């Protein structure tokens, strides 16, 4: 099969799989799968920009996605009354301290003699940290006590859609910092460093109550789409329901989900278009040339590390956008729900299975693997139920097996990753080799 025909056929199969859920089970479930597939596809696209274009392994996708989520809170939540008055000044000073310390270090470093440069930098950074704590701690306490049950600053009260690009910016900023440190060294240092930054980002989000309410979660994030309750009463929805012979509640749910899906699809289409253009541009060709033969590229005088930094930041930004979209869809931000298997390594399975280096592949991978992730649970239940049936019912083995059903998911994902990597390392839609 030629390339384009194969892509088309695979996408058709994917569409059929989702339709099948709609026909056999319910349209709301099918649409829920579609929504998260779209978001997964964007994350996978972001990871593919890093891995497929440049061979960078980012083990901290989760952290960048969570940063995107923070953008959702900070942009769209209404400001909490009294928070700014209580802690605003100290908070501002804390931020100023960080900036001033950074500026001071950047200014002094080149001017210091080699011998004391590093120790002086460390001492300065440490003092800067202490100074920041001097302002941050009272700010955090003041905000906490001034805002009562809310307990946090709230956001800017802007439309949630603005949070999507802002989420990208947040992630890009964090990626720039990590990339600056870890790029240009051994390839797996980046993986380890990103693994670390993701843990830290989540630690901050879980513990800095003034910012994100920590583990108390932020709920009720404004929606970009009319509420289902509102939709149910719209005349056109009632009309539509009557035409399809369905009830308005059901129709409103479908309409609302479709609405989200369309928004997500637009973002995906734009990002995919941009990624494809980038990949085919001279820049994209150069990136792949660097990936395939780093030494030769370096010999030609290309600054590989700087170019990798750019790709790394871009890819992380895309993940950040998807992270913000995810929070938008959920309507809440729950730091404790981020775990690396689901938010980092699952994305990797998507990229590898879809086809590293091929944007269409990465998107397909996002759809397919999310689908498998969702159906893995019923399959796991079914499998364990059958296995349990072999054992004596009600016995230890029986109950143990039933309880173990959820663990089928990671097993399946691991096996899919390993099998793909081994037998079809270029994925379902391989990268076009002709440049």
């Amino acid at each position: 099969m030629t390339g384009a025909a194969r892509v088309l056929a695979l996408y058709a199969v994917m569409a059929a799989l989702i339709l099948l859920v709609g026909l056999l089970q319910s349209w709301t479930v099918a649409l829920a799968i579609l929504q998260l597939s779209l978001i997964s596809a964007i994350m996978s696209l972001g990871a593919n920009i890093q891995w497929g274009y440049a061979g960078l392994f980012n083990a901290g996708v989760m952290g960048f996605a969570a940063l995107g989520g923070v953008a959702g809170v900070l942009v769209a939540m209404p400001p909490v009354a009294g928070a700014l008055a209580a802690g605003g000044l100290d908070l501002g000073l804390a931020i100023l301290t960080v900036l001033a310390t950074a500026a001071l270090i950047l200014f002094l470093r080149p001017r210091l003699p080699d011998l004391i440069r590093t120790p002086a930098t460390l001492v300065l950074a440490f003092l800067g940290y202490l100074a920041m704590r001097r302002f941050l701690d009272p700010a955090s306490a003041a905000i906490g006590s001034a805002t009562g049950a809310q307990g946090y600053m709230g956001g800017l009260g802007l439309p949630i859609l603005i949070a999507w690009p802002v989420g990208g910016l947040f992630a890009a900023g964090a990626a720039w910092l990590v990339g600056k440190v870890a790029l240009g060294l051994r390839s797996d240092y980046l993986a380890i460093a990103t693994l670390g930054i993701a843990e830290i980002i989540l630690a901050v989000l879980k513990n800095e109550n003034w910012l994100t309410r920590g583990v108390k979660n932020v709920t009720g994030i404004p929606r970009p789409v009319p509420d289902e309750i509102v939709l149910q009463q719209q005349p056109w929805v009632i009309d539509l329901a009557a035409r399809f012979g369905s009830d308005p509640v059901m129709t409103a749910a479908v309409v609302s989900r479709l609405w989200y899906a369309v928004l997500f699809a637009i973002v995906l289409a734009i990002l995919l278009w941009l990624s494809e253009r980038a990949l085919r541009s001279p820049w994209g060709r150069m990136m792949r040339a660097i990936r395939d033969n780093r030494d030769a590229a370096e010999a030609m005088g290309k600054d590989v590390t700087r170019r990798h930094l750019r790709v790394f930041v871009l890819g992380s930004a895309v993940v950040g956008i998807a992270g913000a979209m995810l929070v938008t869809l959920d309507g809440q931000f729950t730091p404790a729900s981020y775990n690396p298997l689901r938010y980092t390594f699952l994305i990797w399975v998507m990229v590898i299975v879809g086809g590293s280096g091929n944007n269409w592949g990465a998107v397909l991978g996002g759809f397919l693997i999310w689908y498998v992730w969702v159906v893995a649970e019923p399959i796991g239940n079914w499998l364990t139920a059958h296995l349990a049936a072999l054992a004596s019912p009600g016995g230890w083995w029986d109950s143990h097996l039933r309880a173990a059903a959820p663990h089928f998911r990671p097993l399946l994902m691991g096996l899919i990753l390993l099998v793909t990597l081994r037998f079809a390392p270029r994925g379902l839609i391989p990268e076009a080799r002709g440049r």
Partner: protein
Amino acid sequence: MENFLNALVLFTNFVVIPATTYGAQLALGALGVTLIYTVLRFSNFAHGDLMAFGTMLTIMVTWGLQALGIGIAPLPTALLALPVGMIGATALALLTDRWVFAFYRHRRADPVIFVIASVGVMFVYNAITRFFIGVGDQRFEDGARFVIRVPDFRAMTGLREGLALRTSQVLTVVVMALAVAFVFWFLNRTRTGKSMRAYSDNEDLALLSGISPGHVVRVTWVLAACLATLAGVLYGLDKSFNPFVYFQLLLPIFASAIVGGIGQPVGAVVGGFVVAFSEVTLTYAYKGVLTYLLPEGMAPEGLVQLLGTDYKFAVSFVILVIVLLVRPTGIFRGKVV
């Protein structure tokens, strides 16, 4: 003087002892990671879950032994079950190598491909462990829990502050010292150990000398799996067992290996203690210690804690960043390929 002693006891009890124990656990983990790195040349992301698997087996056997009433009090029963955990983890690691990593080794694949494959392996290990033992916290320490108890120490010294030394802490340090000594002896004195170093130094020349890569790789996995199980069981005895926590230990373990100089066994051990002491000293609240040391009336109001314990992973990360910025080869000049 008495104030000073009290401060010292407090500091020892809450910083020195826990950090030493934790350092020993990290050292064992990092030693395994570094061995895999030096022979197979990749950072094994499945190491945390290998630790969890070996520990899980040990716990299962421990429970079995406890149910049968077999024990080696005052030592924890887990010590008796340990060999089973080690053998199980070794078998799993060897099977994984045969089914997964050997293929990429023969193709001389890029290290990052190994890393990604190790992610797949991590998923599978994780599923297996959780399948058997679930996702919750498990405690399996038994036997005499303390070598020194707080009240006994107070009675003994007449100081206000007490000091506790748990059996698992002493055990951790002793076992770690023995294991490290064994690994060093093995690498530097035995023919097989030397062939491992030779293979890691120059693969092609090792082949020309008739060193069988398969054998070297198998021995490496055996060592790494046993060290991982040891580290996991000691950590679990000291704190508690939780599969996800073991996955999270990857970060401090990698940090330890890199700080010491990845590929350098001595470095892994030193790195383990560097990371552990940094973590514990930075997240400890010094209020009590300072209250004893400072003149009356100057006692601090706050906790005097540099970093909340929830941010302990940040310490590993910051250490990692400093090393990468200042000396990417680590303290003992590891390999940076």
